[in-house]
């Protein structure tokens, strides 16, 4: 008898192939109340002019449900920055498990209760440091850490079990242990430390934020994880090639497969192409096939997939079938502090 726990161990899966998607990522808005330097969406306070309406999001939710999606990670921008977020989330939660990624600064008790009552399963709360100086430097708005911590507390009180995440940068790497201890003390039991991706605004601050792979690994190795905390991390030996189970749509309707692929692919817009058709785009079929030329057997043994992340592999090599340079086994001497010229943002 199964334990009825969600998400079976990847290594236990009989095959890493899906004929229809199970999970998806959805960008609710490209607007945000913060100005984070590591923002992958390069968001601003104003939403893109061609952002989808609530009705379009609802039609997409119906399509996703019909396609087989049963779990949805909703992000922004800052989702709560969109006035009609609750209407859309409530609609999605009728048929899909909804987790909401947020900076939590706009959360109050009333909004938290409304999210819970709308059926949102939980929150993923972004931290950028363990001190106001560091967190607020990333966020670009003074007082952000204090408001995020308050939002975290409000979420817990409302029964919205939060997960905490932090993207590791040169600025916050010295505070990783303090971050772990801080969120553990706040009652968070699932904590993520994420790698920095060369996407969106993060590219403009890459020189200031990027660490070498050895520096990243050393920081992770030094961590003492509290006994009652589960730490999620995606470096070796847990560098998975997740494309096989991914799908995703940005706030303008562009199907991108995965939030980390958003700068590199366009599988079609769901405004004029069925969602499932975009998921079957030839390039995405290729990425899901995981025909990577070289791979780390240790990561394969934990993740059941070959080659690691396709986004960073492509970002640093220009080759969709190259191994991921963020894995120590397949790094091949790539200095991930240096962005390839073709990724460098235009000046001015």
């Amino acid at each position, binding site marked *: *008898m199964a334990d009825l*726990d*969600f998400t079976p161990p990847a290594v236990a899966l009989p*095959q890493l*192939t899906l004929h229809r998607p199970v999970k998806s990522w959805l960008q609710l808005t490209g607007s945000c109340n913060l100005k984070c330097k590591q923002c992958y969406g390069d968001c601003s306070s104003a939403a893109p002019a061609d952002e989808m309406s609530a009705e379009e999001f609802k039609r997409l939710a119906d399509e996703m*449900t019909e396609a087989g999606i*049963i779990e949805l990670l909703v992000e922004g921008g800052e989702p709560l920055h969109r006035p009609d977020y609750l209407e859309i989330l409530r609609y999605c939660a009728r048929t899909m498990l909804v987790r909401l990624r947020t900076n939590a600064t706009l959360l109050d008790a009333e909004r938290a209760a409304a999210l819970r009552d709308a059926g949102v399963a*939980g929150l993923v709360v972004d931290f950028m440091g363990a001190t106001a100086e560091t967190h607020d430097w990333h966020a670009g708005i003074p007082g952000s850490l204090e408001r995020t911590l308050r939002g975290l507390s409000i979420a817990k009180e409302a029964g919205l079990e939060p997960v905490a995440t932090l993207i590791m940068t040169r600025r916050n790497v010295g505070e990783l242990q303090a971050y772990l201890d801080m969120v553990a003390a706040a009652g968070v039991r699932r904590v993520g430390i994420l790698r920095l991706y060369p996407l969106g605004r993060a590219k403009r601050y890459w020189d200031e934020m990027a660490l070498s792979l050895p520096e990243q690994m050393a920081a992770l190795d030094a961590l003492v994880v509290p006994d009652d905390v589960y730490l999620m991390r995606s470096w070796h030996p847990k560098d998975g090639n997740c494309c096989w189970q991914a799908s995703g749509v940005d706030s303008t309707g562009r199907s991108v497969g995965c939030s980390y692929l958003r700068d590199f692919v366009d599988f079609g817009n769901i405004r004029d192409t069925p969602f499932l058709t975009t998921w079957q785009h030839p390039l995405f079929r290729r990425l899901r096939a995981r025909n990577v030329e070289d791979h780390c057997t240790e990561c394969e043994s934990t993740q059941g997939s070959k080659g690691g992340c396709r986004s960073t592999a492509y970002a640093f090599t220009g080759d969709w079938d190259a191994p991921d340079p963020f894995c120590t086994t397949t790094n091949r001497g790539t200095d991930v502090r240096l962005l390839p010229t073709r990724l460098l943002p235009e000046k001015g």
Partner: protein
Amino acid sequence: MSGFSPLDFFQRRADIRVREVPEWGCLLVYTPARPNVHYLDARSWLIYELCDGRGYGELLAEFSEAVPEGTTQEQVVHAVDKGLTALVDNGIVERTDADDRAAIEAGAG
């Protein structure tokens, strides 16, 4: 010794959504009332499918037909009870006893 009575009946709940994933040999079940997604392996999935309003005894008998030869009745009862308990506790299946069922049927008539 089972924790269930022969007079218990089991019915899949209507307020859930299921997603068959034959590639993995599993059934994913979303329970909006208590937001979660549950992973049912082949055995749990079978027990779930058998919860079509039938009684505990009939469910046990049907499940016995699907287990490997040599499986003892004690093992069958243990597996079914564990599965049913998890399905009921997670809001995937409803359990009604004979009195509840009689009341429902009387109301329907």
